[in-house]
């Protein structure tokens, strides 16, 4: 398995020391081949993803997490159109500043990609990635030669080189903010390339990156779909008209009509041989969920995501050959307390609630089976505690619930809130159709009234994201019910959620020990040492800090038409980071 962090590359550092920078990169690349990982290297640039006899099965794949990924057999039927649905056309087109899914998730490509099941780094646009000096502040990347841009003006299929990559890295990092007159804070994926001070093309296939201080998350950050690469001319072309945008991804834009469709055609010169298989990859806009299900059953779309049990039953009944793919996802549900609310400043109160919550009742209640216990880190992270372990911890363990709740009552009484008396807070959430937050909140409210009869918990639903996001972002709440999509690196995820001033630390939690531990983990380039730090983080999370009540990692459920093969090779916890571009690895079979 390819390591997600630096250690394997650092071990080669002695070979590289003392040599010129350009040579360093080249030497490093030559040494480590396709990223320094046997398995990953073997799969790099190949078309293994398209093989009908792919690796996935109904068995866990090394992560210990449940995975259902049927392998579709059959003779490949080349070409065709693959159609998915979404609820609206994308509104933001600059990948550096966009919050949500955007066109670049299809027409662009990220530097590295995660193994969908283990999260291990796989080579992609970058064929090698290397720490090139002892201080850990110089990184060298080799770019796959011969990558072509889409065949449209002004690029007309020109080669995508190290210059483009360097430009992308600096732009993602917000280094062009002043020149572009965009606030630096707008480059919200800058954390993926934190500490970057310079990126330069040494030659057409080598990029040298300079950091202000070591960043053990840097390589993992480049696996995020939200940091796709674009040709360096894009700032001049502008980020407003999707039809003028061209990238290096497997599909190129062909039609874009607001509220109707986003259609793409095959990029014939895509850099992964044999891919994409489909001639066209279309998105049709269907805002209504029941209509989306009907579109899938009637064969107008080839896949449907986030299906609930009722929908699965309906689809299975009407469309018996459709396949269900299911795994523990990188999305995790939670209740986040605000430490601005006096009782939540007290660790005893926070811990009492952690012990009192019946996590299984809440998650089973909404999702049924298929979710995974989670404490701090998502179980999909290699460093993350797995559900089996979390399930044995105080608070999470269903078998010790009564004793844990008795302990919780003692803690609250010791904090001056016997039976919850004096604690009166409100949970805010987004009350959108199909979302888990309302039900999660109601179940939590019922549980608290049962365990702490004098605690008052009220619910405040917001009609949509626009109205909900304001109080959440301002921290104007006592508790919030929401879901987070994990960043592709554990340190980045913990930093944004819990670090003092972290970009998603809406509850304003602050602890010097936590900050110091995250700083240390970010600077730690040795995998084992970093893992040990994250182990310490997870232990302290549940014992000493309790900044959040993580309910669990939700199950991802996707249904795909029975004549589509290859999906099994892309299923897994980290599927979300490659869903759109990985459509290039699916194909039709004759059945």
């Amino acid at each position: 398995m390819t390591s997600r962090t630096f250690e394997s590359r650092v071990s080669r550092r002695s070979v590289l020391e003392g040599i010129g920078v350009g040579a360093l990169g080249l030497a490093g690349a030559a040494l480590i081949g396709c990223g320094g990982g046997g398995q990953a290297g073997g799969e790099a640039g190949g078309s293994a993803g398209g093989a009908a006899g792919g690796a996935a099965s109904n068995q866990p794949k090394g992560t210990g997490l449940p995975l259902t990924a049927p392998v579709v057999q059959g003779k490949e039927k080349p070409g065709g159109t693959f159609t998915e649905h979404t609820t609206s056309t994308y509104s933001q087109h600059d990948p550096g500043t966009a919050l949500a899914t955007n066109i670049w998730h299809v027409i662009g490509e990220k530097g590295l990609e995660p193994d969908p099941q283990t999260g291990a780094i796989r080579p992609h646009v970058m064929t090698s990635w290397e720490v090139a000096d002892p201080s850990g502040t110089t990184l060298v990347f080799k770019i796959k030669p011969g990558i072509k841009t889409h065949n449209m003006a002004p690029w007309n299929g020109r080669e995508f080189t190290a210059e483009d990559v360097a430009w992308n890295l600096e732009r993602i990092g917000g280094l062009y903010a002043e020149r572009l007159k965009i606030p630096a804070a707008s480059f919200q994926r800058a954390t993926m390339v934190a500490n970057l001070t310079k990126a330069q093309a040494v030659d057409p296939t080598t990029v040298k990156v300079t950091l202000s201080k070591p960043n053990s998350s840097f390589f993992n950050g480049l696996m995020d779909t939200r940091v796709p690469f674009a040709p360096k001319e894009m700032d001049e072309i502008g980020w407003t008209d999707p039809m003028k945008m061209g990238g290096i991804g497997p599909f190129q834009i062909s039609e874009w009509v607001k509220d109707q469709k986003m259609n793409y055609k095959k990029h014939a010169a895509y850099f992964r041989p044999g891919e994409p298989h489909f001639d066209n990859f279309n998105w049709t806009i269907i805002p209504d969920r029941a209509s989306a299900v009907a579109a899938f059953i009637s064969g107008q779309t080839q896949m449907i995501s986030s299906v609930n049990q009722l929908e699965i039953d309906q689809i299975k009944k009407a469309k018996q050959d459709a396949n269900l793919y299911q795994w523990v996802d990188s999305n995790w549900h939670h209740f986040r307390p605000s430490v601005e609310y006096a009782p939540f400043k007290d660790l005893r109160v926070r811990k009492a609630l952690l012990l009192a919550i019946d996590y299984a009742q809440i998650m089973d209640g909404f999702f049924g089976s298929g979710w995974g216990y989670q404490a701090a880190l998502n179980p999909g992270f290699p460093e993350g505690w797995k559900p089996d372990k979390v399930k044995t911890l105080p608070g999470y363990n269903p078998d010790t619930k009564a004793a844990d709740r008795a302990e919780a009552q003692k803690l609250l009484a010791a904090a001056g809130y016997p039976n919850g008396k004096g604690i009166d807070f409100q949970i805010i959430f987004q009350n959108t159709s199909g979302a888990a937050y309302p039900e999660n909140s109601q179940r939590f409210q019922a549980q608290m009234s049962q365990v702490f009869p004098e605690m008052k918990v009220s619910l405040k639903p917001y009609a949509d994201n626009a109205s909900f996001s304001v109080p959440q972002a301002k921290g104007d709440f006592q508790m919030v019910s929401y879901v987070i999509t994990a960043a592709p690196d554990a340190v980045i995820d913990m930093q944004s959620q819990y670090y003092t001033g972290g970009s998603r630390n809406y509850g304003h939690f602050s602890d010097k020990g936590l900050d110091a531990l995250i700083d240390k983990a970010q600077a730690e380039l040795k995998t084992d040492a970093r893992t040990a730090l994250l182990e310490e983080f997870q232990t302290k999370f549940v014992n000493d800090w309790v900044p959040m009540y993580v309910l669990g990692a939700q199950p991802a459920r996707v249904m795909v038409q029975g004549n589509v093969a290859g999906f099994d090779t892309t299923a897994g916890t980290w599927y979300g980071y490659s869903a759109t571009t990985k459509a290039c690895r699916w194909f039709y079979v004759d059945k």
Partner: protein
Amino acid sequence: MLAAGVSSAGGVHMAKYVIRRLIGMVPTWLIIMFMVVFMVRLIPGSVVDLLLQEQGGGGSYQEGIDRAAIEKRLGLSDPVYVQYAKYVVGVAQGDLGESLWDNQPVTTLIAQRVPVTAQVALVAIVTSVAVSIPVGVMSAVRRDTPVDYLLRSISILGISVPGFAIGTAIVIFPTLWWGVTVSFKYVTFAEDPIQHLKLIIPPAVVLGVQLSASVARLTRTMMLEVLQEDYIRTARAKGLRETKVIVKHALKNALIPVVTVLGIQITNLIGGSVISETIFAIPGLGRLMVSSITARDYPVVQGIVVMTAVFVMLMNLAVDVSYGYLDPRARPA
């Protein structure tokens, strides 16, 4: 052009009446714009917050960093009454502003969507009139017979079942039973006329069902009333054929209030289009309204509401004017 039987003096009176009504609409229009400008800003959450979220760093709240700049760029930094005054002046000049998200003129966005919604509405009106009036007449003529009971029951059902339920049923049941459903891939009439009609008919049915049901019931009621009139008895006594009595004498008079109600109901179709266009993925005015509200795109929301208000007012005027033509007693003096 005046209809036959209306004198030139009557025509002048009518013209004056129309002008008076048009002038009378101005204050109503100003009040509507006032309410719209204020009300869309009362919806929790603002476009600035949304833009800040998109541009402000992983969901972090960058208060003060670029809020002022965004507000100024979008013209939201002025007091609301100033925004209102600017808006009124703009509208008077035919300028409904620009979308806050993609900077397209609101008039362009609305103009792109109106034909789609208008086509759906037109099909709904034509089919519902074609169905409901014969049904209402039949029901009245066959009063208290099994046919009447059946038609009345169907009408009540049509009024009672909400549009979203009918729409969902149209989509879901054929899917579950036969694995087929309506197409969700919108094409224009120019691209594929047949496919276009196939797409337009289901939402038109959703809109038309309730319209048909209410018109059918009203037609029945009015027909029953008219059929009791002396002149109908006289017509029958003269030996006229029953068909002629019903169609020429009874129906013509019974339809006068039906036309009025139909005019008012047409305006309701715009509201109904929000649901039907969402269910059937039709890119009309209703969808534009929903997506603009979600995005807090104030100018687009305001533009749609103002245009709708104008349409409703003009429809009311048209109904009043047509009423005068249909019933000489109602003509302006």
